[in-house]
């Protein structure tokens, strides 16, 4: 199990984000919601990135440059090479009857590929600014809300929600849509179960998000870092996971 060295095909700005396109090589795109570990040049550890787009022969990632690793990824240029491992973790179940994609900020990253695989279901996307909202152009059938309006303000009942976004959003969504599939985040060093770094507390026990997530549809007693206990839908594996608090 070695990372593949993929070459950069393109890296274009999408609002404040960058759409990094890599030649796919022998890697499979996997299921939407699965992720890949990308090693930014000059950094010790790889960074988890959801697959955003899977055009023929390519893998596309939407990167939010928030720290040294993501900034190094957004600085890659065509012809550069990057080590990529994946697909990893558990993606979304693709069997919902009335799918609705609900996401916020860089949480929309997995939606273009997810939307394609689900036949372009409706999507409800929240962003901080109009600039950030440029990413919505990657998602077909999207309705966009901007802060101070929140996706939860606009969420209609009766859908099978597939959500990805900052923790407070996921928490709020899980209250309104108890059957939702949620894609969580946690800092990850390895992405394949080796380091126990991505452990989050679920039902008073620690579970590795990279092994049991990142997509969870759960109804369990989940405790976030801030200590807020809430009840979310029971997941296939019977557990729920919380990503670390703080949010970005």
């Amino acid at each position, binding site marked *: 199990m070695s990372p593949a060295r993929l070459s950069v095909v393109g890296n274009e700005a999408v609002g404040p984000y960058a759409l990094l396109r890599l030649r796919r090589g022998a890697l499979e795109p996997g299921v939407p919601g699965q992720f890949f570990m990308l090693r930014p040049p000059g950094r010790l550890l790889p960074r988890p990135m959801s697959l955003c787009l899977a055009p023929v022969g390519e893998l596309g990632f939407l990167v939010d440059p928030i720290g040294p690793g993501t900034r190094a990824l957004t600085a890659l240029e065509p012809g550069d090479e990057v*080590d990529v491992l994946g697909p990893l973790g558990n993606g979304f179940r693709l069997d919902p009857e009335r799918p609705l994609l609900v996401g916020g900020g860089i949480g929309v990253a997995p939606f273009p590929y997810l939307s394609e695989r689900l036949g372009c279901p409706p999507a409800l996307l929240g962003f901080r600014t109009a600039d950030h909202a440029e990413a919505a152009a990657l998602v077909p059938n999207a309705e966009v809300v901007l802060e101070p309006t929140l996706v939860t303000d606009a969420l209609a009942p009766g859908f099978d929600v597939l959500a990805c976004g900052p923790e407070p959003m996921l928490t709020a969504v899980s209250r309104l849509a108890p059957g939702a599939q949620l894609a969580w985040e946690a800092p990850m060093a390895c992405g394949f179960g080796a380091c*126990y770094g991505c452990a989050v507390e679920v039902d008073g026990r620690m579970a590795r998000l990279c092994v049991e997530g990142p997509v969870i549809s759960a109804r369990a007693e989940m405790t976030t*870092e801030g200590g807020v206990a809430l009840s979310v839908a029971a997941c296939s594996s019977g557990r729920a996971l919380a990503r670390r608090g703080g949010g970005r």
Partner: protein
Amino acid sequence: MILNASGCLDALTAPEVAREFDAFVTKTVTPLQREGNAPVRIAETDVGMLNSIGLANPGIDTFLADVLPRLLDLGPPVWVSVGGFAAAEYADLCARLERTDAAAIELNLSCPNVAAPEDEATAIVAAARAATGKPLFAKLSPALPDLPAVALAAAAAGADGLALVNTIRGLALDPATLRPRLGTAAGGLSGPALRPVALAAVHTCFRATGLPIVGMGGVETGAHALELIAAGASAVALGTVLFADPGAAARVREELAGEARQRGFADPLAARGVAHADLDGAPPGPVVRVADGARKRSAQVGLKV
């Protein structure tokens, strides 16, 4: 001989990675189950990574019942790392492992809670020695005022080899908030920053004890591995590098062979200890006599003295 560093690989979730090692070392097992520390547990810095996993493990009962049998099924010999808070706990853990097919036991002595690490090492290793006939490796922290003295104490108490080094304490702040990035504030620093520290520890402990040493700390390439061997290691373990490159075992093994050949060594282990030899060809300084038992038990797991 290439091993993984304890806590840096779960052979059950990544069996194909584990099978590339000559032996597989478990995450440290404690008497009782431990959930580990609250998140965030990892952070990257410019010179290494910090972790505060907190020895998350299922505890010895579940380990013996559920985990070890599956690990043994994978193929490579299994070294079990054990940890506790008192000598009696280590002894008990070793006694429980005695009847298993574990190939060796690594005593994680890296978090001593007392002011006299020599005494602590002596007590723990002696208790463990009394409890098991398996090869015993004492894993030490490099952050000791007199590391070779602790290594000697472990050797005298019956350790068959050493595992060097464990992480050292470090802390990183979030640049924006200036708050610690790890939930526990400080954590263990591993990776590149440890490289010179590990070389110094292996060098001085080889000289002091002559015991076989599993060297680790920031190894990323065959050249790094060869340097640890030159300093005195008989085997090399890979930790942090596995997170970026799970295929590192095969790569480092190949690079290591090439680096050794390039310098005229028949095989990598022929370079063991050359850092202690004068450049004019004079042999290394006095080699400490290693006890017959230690010699024999180390050979069992393929480590030459």
